[in-house]
């Protein structure tokens, strides 16, 4: 074999391999909430303006900004943000991408690559709605609530426990989740504003317009931060008088369970409507939680567009002159919107119904302590069809009293141990058990 030829061939192949292999990925950007953007038909220049505002306020996934007004901790954000394999010697970096991004997505939209195979889907933080917290329904979770979710995970879902991470890493991740949530909420307000208030050609630039600056920082960010910062005050602390004593005698517990059962089947609490008379969660199963509802609405509206375009075309056939021109423009707009919606559909996760919990399994997603179950009943599970049976705020009146809620808590805790809930021994499976207990 001709050595020169072979050397040249070798060099060519190696060079190609190096070129192909060494293409580094660009730093990932945050993505706008495209379902919202397309649904609200926000103009491209406004989309860019919104992206710029968010970029200036919050930075990028690699370099986050802890805006003074948010009170977020820059050091913690730096620990959580950025690529995992970085050359920041000695410093922790990239925690979010190491532990969270493949499910929760780079923008916290719950659409990481793994999300498609999960049931339930990972949380989309951008609505600022969190299911399992200690505060009143409309309030944000406290730091302790978010820390607990990371510590214990969410049993019954793919969210694992991160208790084995050092506390500083957990704190950094909690901070980053808040950051993504605040950013998402901010984005939503900006998009609402753009869709409702702005017309084509309007400028939307807080850097150069003090009025817009005030709008963004005080009227939009202000309430968001008030809600987050005020969460601590919104914690539901049950009255001592209502709390059952520790180590109750069995008779008292039985009575409480019985009372709880009556409330469960009663009309005021109406638990059986969703959880079913069997408590297996086979009641109403066709409702949606807010995250899936948004996707479902998007799908439905996209389908409706087809009908809308068809009916416009029928109108066009009958219309004349200026009316016709107007209708033609409407058809063009509708078609454009439909195309944008259709292009987005394949990237969405299919909407799923909110299935009420099977209470006989003994799996408590938000925690199994009595206080956890109390919070679920009292303030409901925000974002889901599980309603609040307690008061909506401090001093308000709820459907049930605290004592009644504790009784339902006792009943719910007893459900997994009812004979009907225990594993049934059938003759055919008796030999399945390898070494008997």
């Amino acid at each position, binding site marked *: 074999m001709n050595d020169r030829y072979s050397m040249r061939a070798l060099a060519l192949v190696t060079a190609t391999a190096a070129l192909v292999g060494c293409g580094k990925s660009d730093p990932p950007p945050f993505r706008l909430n495209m379902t919202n953007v397309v649904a609200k038909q926000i103009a491209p220049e406004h989309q860019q303006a919104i992206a710029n505002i968010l970029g200036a306020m919050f930075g990028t996934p690699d370099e986050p900004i802890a805006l003074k007004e948010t009170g977020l901790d820059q050091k913690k954000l730096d620990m959580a943000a950025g690529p995992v394999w970085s050359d920041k010697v000695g410093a922790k970096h990239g925690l979010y991408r190491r532990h969270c991004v493949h499910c929760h997505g780079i923008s916290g939209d719950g659409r990481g690559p*793994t999300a498609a*195979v999960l049931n339930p889907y990972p949380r989309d933080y951008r609505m600022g709605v969190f299911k399992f917290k*200690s505060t009143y329904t409309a309030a944000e979770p406290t730091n*302790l*609530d978010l*820390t*607990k979710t990371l*510590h*214990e*995970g969410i*049993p019954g879902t*793919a969210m*694992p*426990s991160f*208790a*084995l991470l050092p506390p500083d890493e957990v704190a950094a991740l909690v901070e980053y989740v808040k950051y993504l949530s605040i950013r998402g909420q901010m984005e939503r307000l900006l998009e609402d504003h753009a869709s409702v208030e702005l017309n084509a050609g309007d400028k939307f630039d807080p850097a150069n317009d003090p009025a817009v600056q005030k709008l963004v920082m005080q009227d939009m960010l202000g309430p968001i931060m008030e809600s987050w910062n005020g969460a601590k005050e919104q*914690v539901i*602390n*049950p009255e*001592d008088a209502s*709390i*059952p004593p*520790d180590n109750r005698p069995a008779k008292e517990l039985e009575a409480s369970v019985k009372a709880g059962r009556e409330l469960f089947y009663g009309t005021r609490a109406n638990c059986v409507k969703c959880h079913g008379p069997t408590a297996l969660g086979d009641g109403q199963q066709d409702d949606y939680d807010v995250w899936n509802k948004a996707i479902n609405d998007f799908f439905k509206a996209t389908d409706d567009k087809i009908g809308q375009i068809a009916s416009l075309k029928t109108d066009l056939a009958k219309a004349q002159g200026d009316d016709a021109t107007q209708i033609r423009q409407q058809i063009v707009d509708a078609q454009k919107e439909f195309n944008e919606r259709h292009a987005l559909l394949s990237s969405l996760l299919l909407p799923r119904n909110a299935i009420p919990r099977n209470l006989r399994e*003994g799996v408590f997603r938000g925690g*199994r*302590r*009595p*206080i956890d179950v*109390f919070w679920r009943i009292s303030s409901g599970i925000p974002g889901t069809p599980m309603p609040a049976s307690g008061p909506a705020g401090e001093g308000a009146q709820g459907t049930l009293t605290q004592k009644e809620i*504790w009784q339902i808590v006792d009943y719910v*805790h*007893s459900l997994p*141990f009812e004979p009907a809930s*225990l594993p049934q021994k059938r003759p055919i499976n008796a030999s*399945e*058990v*390898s*070494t008997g*207990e």
Partner: protein
Amino acid sequence: MKHFWALLFLLVPIFGVLTFVLAPYYNHSFPRDISENGRVIDQLFYFILYLTGVLFVATEGALFYFMWKYNGRTNREPVKYSHGSHTLEVVWTILPAVTLLFIAIYQMNAWADAKMRKPDIPVTAEITGRQFNWDVRYPGPDGILHTPDDIILVDGEIHFPAGEEILLSIKAADVLHSFFLPNIRMKQDVVPGMQQYMWFKCRESKAEVDIVCAELCGWGHYKMSGRATFEPRSEFNAWLAKKSAEQQAHRITQATP
């Protein structure tokens, strides 16, 4: 160089042995053994290591030697025109067979102890592997599993009493998992629908070691880390009492989230 290839092959036994000899000095060998009976496994491993090490050096050495001595470019002798040796065949059949039979019998007791001789003691805890977490259920004050006072923990931190024999009941909730404690030298796959047991004793009074999932269970197989904490029985009981109280929490204090 005429003997280049023979020398290249000589590097195999040299580096092969060196790697195993030097690895422990760089903390690249067995993880710390905190169990009572784990050393049986370690000793068996080392026995096999030395035995195979000798065989390795002998056979690779022979290979090197023959490659050197019978190199066609240096060997002037005619080839030894032989079709084999019946005696040698018998010898190198019988000797390895006896050795292998010996190893087979030698280890049976250790296997029986680890997997067949379940101790007749109450179950300390029931551990369930699920996608992707280790959950533990302690019997609670009444000492019976699957009653309302069970202590159920889902954060992967599992405590055990040290210095006493422990019996674990282990199961899988959804797909195959495997409960692996490297520092106890114990591993058992858990199969949905099957009840498995694992028993061991920690001989140190305080230790914190990893729990590893050792059977592919999905995308989150690597995330199923747990930590086993061994502590004296009194501390363990105190911890259980604390967890039991937390589980009964009707109110929050500053400490509990």
